[in-house]
């Protein structure tokens, strides 16, 4: 970094832009500069107080549910390098010399600027109550604050949050998540006084109290009391009562951080905030801009939300690039968020402050739902508040300012309770803003489909940026894209394939509830009319075969997949219980649970490989793959393996593959649990479980994570208190770190939770949808899965556990079963009319002391092999 070389950063020929503050808005500003090419013509220097680059402060609380600091980061790994931006972390600006046009940072670094941008954000307001500096008092703003709270919470049992606004409730959620008895103290008569009205506040309060949080409204903290050691013991409230608590989090609002600006004589507002004009420039100094929460916009307001901050960042970047800009003259402060699992939204004139405003209210205290719309005398929708069910937000907010096509009461009634037709985003005008974060209108989204030929939601997201901010509009976006596709003649068919109009999850339910264990019957009763007399297809056959195999013991089917009709449903790999390779030969993978193997068994594998001349390779899953077997050799190879105690490794199936492990506590000086024993137990429990796609797992014996469990569909990491369970990880082309589902589980709890998780995945995933894609796709994502499998919100858990118990009970080794039955063995011939003849086209040549396929034998009029993409939809896309 430049700072290391010289205390005064050198001036260059290029103009220099200095950004003070690298929060969400600061990062957005840098991106906006890069998009406009300014980073190529100017030198850009960033001074950042925090020790890490910009991260998603809005999602801060998710840090406690397992999201790491890295995952919260908003900065692409090579962003700074790619654009030549100099980022100084942990080095806050301390003084600005406007006459000399320099900024000096804490380290002594002085940088000259041509343009200065302040994005210093805000600081948490701590009310001046006595005792506020006691040990155990915190604010809730940065990752460092969270780390300190987490550490302190380990040794205490009760916490109180001062402030019942948005951030206060976030903080309360974090405390309950840490296992503390939690109080919220709000001075106003209701929770979230800025966003919601009394009715909404009451609904919110009931739901939050049901979660065990104690809410005190209409009172303030008068004094924090501390013990002799200086640690918090409680809080005296303004009504004379007392609250015993071990820690206090202040979350009573934020104030603009404008001290730097004050010190150098820039104009600030009466209640704080750096005064700026519509281009976000300070009126007193044309070289200085201020954006985000530290700025006092030209409408006289300080905006504490991220969307207006982003708009200011874009405005300032456009002004610096000397491009036309509409300017920033004010913003919509509509919000939708999930607080402690409760949907809360407010938009427009939520409090009915406009003259002649009338309310339309729907309130169901039992369900914790409160909805209010504010309408003008002429029927214009002015705003509203939604608590407990904010489903309609995506549609209502864009309608604000217009007269909705249906009456307001129909807009608040729940579906099925009198609302005649669900009013979708199709009813919105083209200029309605669908994505508030990126200011994308319905017209732009329609254009992405009609003019830019986008045919899927991810394509539209990429093309328009819509839905890539807070994500609250994705539902409306999806429905719009589908409407538009349909209107342009593209049929959006969610059916599995040309034979079935149902999704895989729907077919699973049909098989399960009707106990329909026959593909032919399923096709005849549930297939598309035009497909009922046909032979099915290669997409639905294995999918249905897999569903029947998953449910076999519960629907009266045989778990052995190669008898009767089921045999005809299996892909060639399952059909021969081995993996087809490019020259028509197969590979063999015996199960090696947890990667643990005795020397004797290792020798048997070596002898088999040697005797059959197989190419031998260690796999990534701690097993051994033996390549180059002909169909007719498979039973001979397996009879030797089964005799030595091996069983099928299911490398050929959409099924559990392997559970990797590190060596664990038994040998490793860092290990805290026996990871090998756990891995073996898990692998033996779930072996043979057929699922929508392959399943991989791993167990690490400590937080060093040598088994790479977070790259797996379900990964287990040992802690000193038990086991943490992570789900939805993936390696490969689209890597994803697994999310923490639950922590510090006992042995039995861990297994019960994995049972439920896997069975819920098998029940609801699409064909060839890995857990990572499934977790991202399903409504509610990880939170929903946690609700279902941890909190049993759907009452399914008993059934999921019973299904898994049946699977475990009925498991048999497929290869042993096959070898014991001459009829089953009959298929393992290369030629039906010459059972003893080996396939002459399967030949090998030597390479590095082993064999490789001799492809010259396959030559002839071979066509150039193209990727399937050009011919058929890729594996993994269910659309056809």
């Amino acid at each position: 970094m430049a700072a290391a070389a010289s205390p005064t950063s050198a001036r260059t020929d290029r103009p220099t832009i200095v950004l003070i503050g690298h929060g969400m808005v600061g990062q957005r500003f840098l991106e906006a500069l890069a998009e406009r090419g300014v980073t190529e013509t100017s030198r850009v220097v960033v001074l950042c107080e925090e020790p890490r680059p910009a991260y998603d402060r809005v999602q801060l609380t998710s840090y406690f549910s397992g999201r790491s600091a890295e995952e919260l980061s908003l900065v692409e790994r090579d962003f700074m390098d790619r654009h030549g931006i100099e980022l100084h972390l942990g080095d806050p600006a301390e003084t600005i010399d406007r006459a000399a046009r320099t900024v000096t940072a804490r380290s002594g670094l002085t940088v000259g600027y041509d343009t200065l941008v302040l994005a210093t954000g805000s600081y948490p307001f701590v009310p001046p109550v006595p005792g506020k500096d006691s040990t155990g008092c915190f604010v809730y703003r940065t990752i460092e604050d969270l780390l300190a709270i987490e550490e302190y919470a380990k040794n205490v049992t009760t916490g109180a949050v001062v402030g019942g606004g948005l951030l206060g409730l976030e903080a309360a959620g974090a405390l309950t998540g840490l296992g503390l008895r939690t109080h919220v103290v709000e001075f106003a008569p209701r929770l979230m006084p800025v966003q919601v009205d009394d009715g909404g506040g009451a609904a919110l309060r009931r739901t939050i109290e049901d979660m065990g949080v104690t809410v005190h409204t209409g009172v303030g903290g008068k004094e924090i009391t501390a013990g002799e050691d200086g640690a918090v013991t409680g809080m005296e409230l303004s009504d004379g009562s007392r609250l015993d608590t071990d820690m206090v989090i202040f979350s009573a609002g934020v104030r603009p951080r404008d001290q730097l600006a004050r010190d150098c004589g820039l104009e600030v507002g009466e209640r704080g905030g750096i005064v700026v004009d519509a281009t976000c420039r300070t009126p007193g100094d044309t070289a200085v801009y201020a954006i985000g929460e530290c700025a006092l916009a030209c409408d006289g307001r300080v905006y504490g939300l991220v969307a207006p901050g982003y708009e200011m960042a874009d405005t300032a970047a456009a002004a610096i690039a000397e491009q036309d800009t509409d300017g920033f003259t004010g913003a919509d402060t509509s919000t939708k968020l999930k607080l402690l699992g409760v949907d809360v939204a407010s938009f427009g004139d939520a409090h009915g402050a406009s003259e002649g405003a009338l309310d339309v209210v729907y309130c169901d205290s039992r369900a914790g739902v409160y909805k209010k719309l504010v309408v003008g005398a002429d029927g214009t929708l002015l705003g509203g508040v939604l608590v407990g069910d904010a489903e309609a937000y995506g549609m209502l907010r864009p309608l604000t300012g217009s007269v909705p096509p249906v009456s307001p009461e129909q807009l608040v009634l729940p579906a099925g309770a009198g609302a005649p037709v669900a009013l979708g985003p199709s009813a919105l005008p083209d200029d309605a803003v669908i994505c508030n974060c990126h200011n994308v209108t319905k017209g732009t989204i329609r254009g992405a489909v009609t003019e830019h030929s986008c045919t899927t939601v991810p394509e539209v997201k990429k093309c328009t940026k819509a839905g890539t901010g807070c994500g609250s509009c994705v539902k409306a976006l999806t429905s719009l894209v589908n409407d538009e596709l349909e209107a342009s003649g593209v049929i959006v068919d969610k059916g599995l394939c040309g034979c079935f109009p149902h999704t895989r999850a729907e077919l699973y339910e049909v098989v399960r509830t009707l106990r329909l264990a026959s593909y032919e019957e399923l096709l005849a009763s549930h297939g598309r009319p035009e497909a009922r007399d046909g032979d099915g297809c290669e997409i639905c056959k294995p999918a249905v075969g897999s569903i029947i195999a998953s449910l076999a013991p519960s629907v009266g089917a045989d778990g052995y997949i190669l008898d009767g009709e089921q045999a005809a449903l299996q892909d060639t790999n399952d059909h021969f219980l081995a993996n087809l390779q490019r020259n028509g030969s197969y590979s063999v993978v015996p199960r090696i649970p947890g990667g643990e193997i005795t020397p004797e068994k290792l020798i048997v594998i070596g002898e088999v490989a040697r005797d059959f001349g197989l190419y031998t390779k260690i796999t990534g899953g701690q097993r051994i793959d033996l390549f180059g077997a002909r169909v007719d050799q498979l039973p001979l190879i397996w009879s030797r393996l089964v005799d030595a105690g091996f069983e099928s490794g299911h490398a050929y199936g959409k099924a559990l593959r392997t559970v990797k492990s590190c060596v664990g506590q038994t040998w490793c000086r860092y290990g805290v649990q026996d990871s090998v024993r756990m891995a073996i137990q898990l692998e033996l429990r779930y072996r043979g479980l057929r699922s929508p796609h392959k399943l991989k797992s791993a167990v690490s014996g400590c937080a060093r994570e040598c088994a790479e469990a977070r790259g797996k569909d379900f990964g287990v990491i040992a802690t000193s208190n038990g086991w943490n369970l992570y789900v939805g990880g993936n390696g490969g082309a689209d890597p994803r770190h697994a999310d923490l589902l639950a922590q510090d589980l006992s042995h039995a709890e861990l297994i019960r939770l994995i049972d439920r998780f896997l069975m819920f995945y098998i029940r609801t995933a699409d064909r060839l949808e890995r857990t990572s894609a499934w977790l991202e796709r399903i409504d509610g994502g990880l939170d929903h899965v946690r609700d279902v499998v941890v909190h049993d919100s759907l009452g399914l858990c008993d059934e999921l556990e019973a299904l898994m118990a049946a699977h475990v009970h009925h498991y048999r080794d497929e290869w042993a079963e096959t070898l014991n039955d001459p009829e089953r063995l009959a298929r393992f011939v290369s030629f039906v009319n010459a059972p003893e003849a080996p396939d002459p086209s399967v030949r090998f040549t030597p390479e590095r002391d082993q064999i490789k396929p001799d492809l010259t034998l396959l030559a002839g009029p071979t066509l150039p092999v193209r990727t399937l993409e050009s011919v058929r939809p890729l594996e993994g896309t269910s659309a056809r």
Partner: protein
Amino acid sequence: MTTATATPTATEAATTAAADSPTVEILGPDGWLPVCTLDRLSPGRGVAALLPDGTQAALFTDRAGRAYAIGNRDPFTGAQVLSRGLTGTATGRPYVASPLLKQRFDLANGECLDDPSVSVPTYSVRTRGGA
């Protein structure tokens, strides 16, 4: 006959397994060749047959009991694997999907459904005898 490994004894062994099931025959270069009994074929699943000239055929039946035979060689990869693909019906045409890269071939005329410029040979099939 060239280098075919299909000896008459092996053929007889395979075809006499179930005497009461009709025999399936393929029309090869040297006339009708008995391949196996019909009960060795299950709808939706193929088997491979070695022809006297050393080439390979893939033999299938559909749900209605009709038998089809096409070349076993997948023209996209050169591997002799079409008999191990999954069958299906697309707009009334019976097909097999290659187990390697999944291109589909019409069982009746050998045409590739995903690339009409490509096709595989077809063979006439008949069933004879049986109880």
